[in-house]
């Protein structure tokens, strides 16, 4: 496949106009994810409301793929249950490791399906997963703190 095809309009749109970007308070977990080989970074915060992902906010530097994938991710998980968010993570993760051979489900992955082409470019898989891995880690953090018992944090935690 051509690289031009990989850069679907959906991806470029999310890149140019990122959804839910910026860091917001308060939050329940904050993580930094790095792609060591190129230096791309994302700082991501998750706010829960019981079992619901109330907000995901983020700031970072990265290529169009990593930025757009993070933007698409926030659309998919904000307002959904934590369980649901984890399912989306698993689904997106699987798609990205399918070398482009998986038939993605538009019902569940919505704009995320645009990334199936990226999965053919092994070097970009890490880019597409950067924000998603941050999400998973942040969710793990909230789970490790029993039942959201910890106080909601503010900036300089």
């Amino acid at each position, binding site marked *: 496949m051509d690289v031009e095809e990989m850069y679907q309009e959906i991806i470029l749109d999310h890149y140019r106009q990122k959804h839910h970007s910026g860091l917001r308070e308060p939050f329940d977990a904050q993580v930094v994810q790095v792609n*060591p080989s190129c230096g791309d970074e994302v700082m991501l915060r998750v706010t829960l409301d019981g079992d619901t992902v109330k907000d995901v906010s983020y700031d970072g530097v990265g290529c169009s793929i990593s930025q757009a994938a993070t933007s698409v991710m926030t659309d998919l998980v904000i307002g959904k249950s934590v369980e649901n968010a984890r399912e989306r993570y698993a689904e997106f993760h699987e798609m990205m490791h399918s070398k482009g051979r998986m038939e993605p489900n538009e019902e569940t992955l919505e704009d995320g399906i645009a990334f199936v082409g990226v999965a053919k470019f092994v*070097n970009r898989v890490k880019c597409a997963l950067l924000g998603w891995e941050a999400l998973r880690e942040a969710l793990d953090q909230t789970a490790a703190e029993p039942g959201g018992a910890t106080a909601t944090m503010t900036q300089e935690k």
Partner: protein
Amino acid sequence: MTLAADKTSAGYDVAALRADFPILRREVNGKPIVYLDSANTSQKPQVVIDALTEHYTHHNANVARAMHLLGAEATEAFEGARQKLATFVGAARPEEIVFTKNASEALNLTAHTLGADLKPGDEIVTTVMEHHSNIVPWQMLAERTGATLRWFDITEDGRLDLAAAERDGLINEKTRIVTLTLVSNVLGTINPVRQIADQAHAVGAKVVVDASQGVPQMPVDMAALGADLVAFTGHKMVGPTGVGVLWGNYDVLAALPPFLGGGEMIEIVRMTGSTYAKPPHRFEAGTPPIAQAIGLGVAVDYLTGVGMEAIAQHEREITAYLLQGLQTIDGLRILGPTEVVDRGGAVSFDLGDIHPHDVSQMLDAKGVAVRGGHHCARPLHERLGIQSSTRASGYLYTTTGEVDALIDALGYTIKFFRGK
């Protein structure tokens, strides 16, 4: 005559395998070379040599860092090799495989990282039968930290003296690290690693195994072995020089500090300090041995194709034949077990008045390649009361005819030096 060791009903055909190793066609004085120095380094099949050529000719690029076509191809081949190695030794995941330059680097890595926080009073346990590469790093660690180095002794028949160790409380609550070889490169002894690892774990110590002579010769499964960290080396298992492997239990690796610092082992480098990547990359500073790891991947494909069980069986048969042959020689003393029970393929022996240098030189003149010296195991030789020995070691391509050539040449050598 074709003996059992050369061609078995199970389909092991040493003549067919030999055709895969171009160097075995080399002749000395009109006769094919008899290479009985495989414990030192193994020969390479054509597929491994071709893999290197193929890589440099079509796919060469640096790994991990490059977005481009060649970079993607090189990275996929390199990480693919990691996966192959993981499968070959039964690792739980490819991230448990760290590529080093050889077994020695892998062992030094374990001494530096596992031993970083050792203190005076702590004890490290090793054995008198170790290769220098599994002695010197621990001596240096003991010197850096003030920890004490203690030793397993051996019995008369060249096995670890487990009874003495038990009696002396060798492994105790002060023990932090126990390290031992899976197979001795001099005696051939196969050590009861599982049993010792269980003892070590019972007192909270970590277990490092030098499997340099084990992984090439027999099926080795990391889960069954029971160690925390295991080193082995590419060039002894039909792979290229310049690449070794450290296998580590993922959780153990993840808890270790880095060893060598540099490109690719970092997470974020700041002037004020750096954070480090997850295993295996944390332990692979700089450009790794890319072509060599890829070549080693092809080497394990080759070994798997032949079958590690079949190779181990052949090794046992050829070793039995070799032990038998050597025992026909007057005044020859075999070091280590004289029967193939828990025994690998290296057979060292002493001829008393004839020095191993002279033996190996004379054998070489007859086209037979063996090794003479202390085989990087001087403490073991001192323990055995000799300064050096001669070692013959076969591998998957060794024939009974080659063993016969050795025995003949030894007879000639003895006559030459003893004058009778």
